[in-house]
């Protein structure tokens, strides 16, 4: 009984100590009322066109649903220039490995994974970068390969929501 009480106290003490278990100080939030989302740049990396446009479309949907910004503009939208604090999301594909839905369903998690590595950069109204992150997305379980684009959009939206 005594030993179990001691063990309990041993486990509880770190949680009660101030500053020991807290997350690192969050960086100050950025502010912008509108964002323009550009089509992903692929450079020399080979990726089917449907993946490229699916990432773009899913990003637009997810960022709109998150309500992080009052306005979300598509690439090329002329109405965006009316917002002086407009920020722009640029994404660059760094790596793409297309897996196999059949392999994933036969041997989930271990085979057939589709992977995408992306660099996401947000630039301010002056064009200078204000945020730069690397994003890695995967489809390991069920679903078509193109659903990796959903994971990309989810992760980038989360990054934006945490930063703005």
């Amino acid at each position, binding site marked *: 009984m005594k030993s179990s009480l001691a063990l309990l106290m041993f486990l509880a003490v770190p949680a009660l100590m101030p500053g020991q278990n807290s997350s690192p100080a969050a960086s100050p939030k950025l502010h912008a009322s509108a964002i323009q989302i550009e*089509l992903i740049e692929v450079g020399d990396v080979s990726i*089917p*066109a*449907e993946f*490229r*446009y*699916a990432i*773009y*479309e*899913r990003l637009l*949907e997810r960022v709109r649903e998150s309500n992080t910004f009052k306005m979300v*503009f*598509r*690439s*090329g*939208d*002329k*109405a965006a220039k009316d917002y002086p604090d407009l920020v722009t999301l640029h994404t660059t594909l760094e790596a793409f490995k*297309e*897996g*196999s*839905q*059949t392999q994933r*369903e*036969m041997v989930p998690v271990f085979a057939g994974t589709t992977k995408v590595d992306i660099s996401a950069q947000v630039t301010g109204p002056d064009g200078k970068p204000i945020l730069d992150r690397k994003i890695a997305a995967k489809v390991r379980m069920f679903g*078509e*390969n*193109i659903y990796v684009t959903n994971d990309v959009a989810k992760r980038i939206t989360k990054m934006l929501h945490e930063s703005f």
Partner: protein
Amino acid sequence: MLLSILLGTASALAEQPDQGPKVRHVIGLDNIKHNANGHLKILNGAMHFDPDKDDNKVRDAKVPVASISDIFVGNETTQSGGTAGKVVKLAAPFGSGRALTLLLRTKVDILTVVFRGAGGDLHGAIFALPKGQAEPMRAQLVAAGAHTSAPPELKERPNP
């Protein structure tokens, strides 16, 4: 009697308007749900997507052919059988559902239509079509006046 039935059927088919190929809208058309099934056709200088069900916000989504700046054709392996197929696979005993994966595979063509809205905004609408139907649809769109920079041939991906 038989001849009259055959003639009647033939004339009915002849009068039926061309519905276009049956497609699945993956993403990209405003107010149309993801994975909505419907028909894709070209009419009066516009590409129309007519959803099968009325649960979408619009009955018909249309894209002026002149606003189409690029068209890409690709392919994907997907699972046929819909929700029923998924349920059967999950319910099959002793992991035998995984074997069904091999039987329920279907190859589909993927048609990506890139277009600009009235304000210059970029859109990419993605459709899944039965195998072999994306290329004719692409040719129809180009013939109707759509622009494209992508090469016409469909390249089979080795491991979709």
